[in-house]
């Protein structure tokens, strides 16, 4: 009697564990055609949240977890786009989001689409993302200052000479190391990035900045402090 019960319990727990693992890992192996619903998580959800956020449907955090807020936002989006408001991101909803599940259809229309001439749009976008990640709550001048630090680093011999090189230098920026910088970019951060690229430097040539209210490496205080803007100290 006792033995049977014990085996039964183990079997149930085992089954729970296995199914839990399957659910856990299920999301990541699949591509974009995944069906997303309340409880889903992963980069696909982040993508949907980011899009809905930009279009004004979604106001919650873009964290990759399909929660009630995401559910409501998806429903709103579906209603506006003439889809059944079931709150599930299926093939039709994907298509309406501009990310059709079937990619093959587009191959025939391939064109080189060469845009003529160079531009610094890629640098502006990259810079804006790091500014958003590092200084979202700072004033406009504080945002421009963070952008200026990145640009000053490209000029300094001690750092990589491209903007991408500086930004993706391992553990140079917290928001890049933890993936925060992929958040949607605010209008102000974008303008700050443009200002920094066109030459504004409220820091007078700083190549370091840090938040003194957070634990930082003591070494950093040996640098020449130039100024403080908001919660950031700028130094070179």
């Amino acid at each position, binding site marked *: 009697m006792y033995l049977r019960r014990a085996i039964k319990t183990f079997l149930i727990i085992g089954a729970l564990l296995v199914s839990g693992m399957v659910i856990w890992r299920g999301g990541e192996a699949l591509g974009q055609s995944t069906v997303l619903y309340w409880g889903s998580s992963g980069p696909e959800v982040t993508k949907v949240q980011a899009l809905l956020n930009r279009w004004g449907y979604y106001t919650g955090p873009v964290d990759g977890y399909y929660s009630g807020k995401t559910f409501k936002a998806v429903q709103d989006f579906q209603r506006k786009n003439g889809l059944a408001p079931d709150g599930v991101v299926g093939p039709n909803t994907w298509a309406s989001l*501009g990310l059709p599940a079937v990619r093959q259809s587009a191959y025939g229309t391939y064109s080189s689409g060469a845009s003529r001439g160079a531009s610094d749009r890629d640098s502006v976008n990259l810079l804006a993302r790091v500014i958003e990640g590092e200084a979202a709550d700072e004033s406009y001048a504080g945002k421009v200052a963070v952008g200026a630090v990145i640009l000053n680093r490209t000029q300094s011999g001690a750092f990589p000479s491209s903007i991408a090189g500086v930004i993706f230098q391992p553990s140079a920026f917290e928001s890049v190391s933890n993936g925060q910088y992929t958040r949607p970019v605010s209008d102000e951060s974008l303008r700050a990035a443009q200002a920094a690229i066109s030459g504004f430097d409220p820091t007078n040539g700083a190549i370091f900045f840090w938040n003194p209210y957070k634990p930082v490496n003591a070494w950093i205080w040996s640098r020449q402090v130039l100024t403080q*803007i908001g919660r950031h100290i700028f130094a070179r």
Partner: protein
Amino acid sequence: MRKYRWIFPIAVGILLLAGVGFWGYGQMVSRQAAETALNNKYNLAFYNLLNNVQNMEVMLSKSLVGEETHQDSQLFMRLWQESLAAQSNLGQIPVTEASVARTIKFLNQLGAYSQSLAAQTAGGSSKNDDQWQTLNKLYKQAQTLNGELRNVESSLSSGTLTLSELKRDSRYVLRRAGPQLANSNFQVIDRNMQQYPTLIYDGPFSDHIARKTPVGLEGSQVSSDQARDISLKFIERRPNTTYIANVAGTVNGRLPVYRVDISPRPAQNGEKITMGVSSRGGKVVWMLNSRSPGTAALKVREAGDIAGRFLEDRGFKDMESTYYEVRDAVAVFNYAATQGKIILYPDQIKVTVSLDNGQVVGYDAANYWMAHRARTLPQPRLTAAEARAKLSPRLEDVTPGRLALIPKTVDNEVLAYEFQGRLDKDVFLVYIDALTGEEVKLLKVIKTNNGVLTM
């Protein structure tokens, strides 16, 4: 007693479950960290590749115009380096070889070709007509490649594509980028991320050149009270608005300033003005206005007039507008000082005008105050016509030429003739040393839909 024996296996099971859960959570966190780190590596390689290809495009187009062999040889050396760097960056992006074979081949060819041309031109013999044709072909290919990469970049930055995703179905990769953009849905995805056609014009000489001390600033130290008064005099005032200024701090460094915050009451769109006033001489070095501009209503020409008046009202005489760029709803105008009829490119001021109501929302005179002074300029030894004879015969619509002072290295300025000319659709600025007749600088002007032009 015996009845409750079954509790033990359940307790053990729950403990096990908790243990596995804890372990699993740790695994998930470290997996995410690893994925982010990997993604950052891919991004780095991709953006560097973009940079390489863009540089290659600009340098190739310059090589079509350059005449001087030792300048050419430097250009080809740099092209060779860029193509090597581009290959190594491309190699780090998670794509299958098959899909980028064409690109790698192109980079290889370009590298080998520029290497041989570098050797040839370093030996003193300039490129012949066939070689020019080949370069022209390579230039067109680099343009196409640049365009394709840029399409991938717009998917990346709008978040519809991540590089680790590329890895999952790398068969499609770069080939996929074209159709993605062709998708009309894609164009509305993000207004913020729309193309910013701008000018990278490796100048004219707009980079910060690190001078040691500002030579433009004279006079005595000003107090923070004086700095506040200076800043209040500098701003444009709206009627029925009071302006409250506060010295928020100082900024040390090469050009020490007081940072002054000014808040208008009542404010428009959360408007806040921040200004740097030099502690020596009390000059406004920069000004930033945080107001978010509305939809553009002004023409660029009207905005340009406003920028010009803004400078005149603040005592800048003899400034000349050199070029402008439009970014979203603002236009940035570059001004350079003049002496006699000679334009002084090191002494630059940038004025940003909002195109919704014509307010000046940005002002940057750091370069001006670092460099400006009355200079004793040498007499040119060449006439404009003599200098013009040094230009590539392939350039068309060449301007008569004018004298300009350009920065060559940190403390070395060169008096040169500036010519503007055209090759196909590309516009170039060529600078010929007015004393030695050497070609000192070759710039490419990039015009875009937003009407960036040299004025």
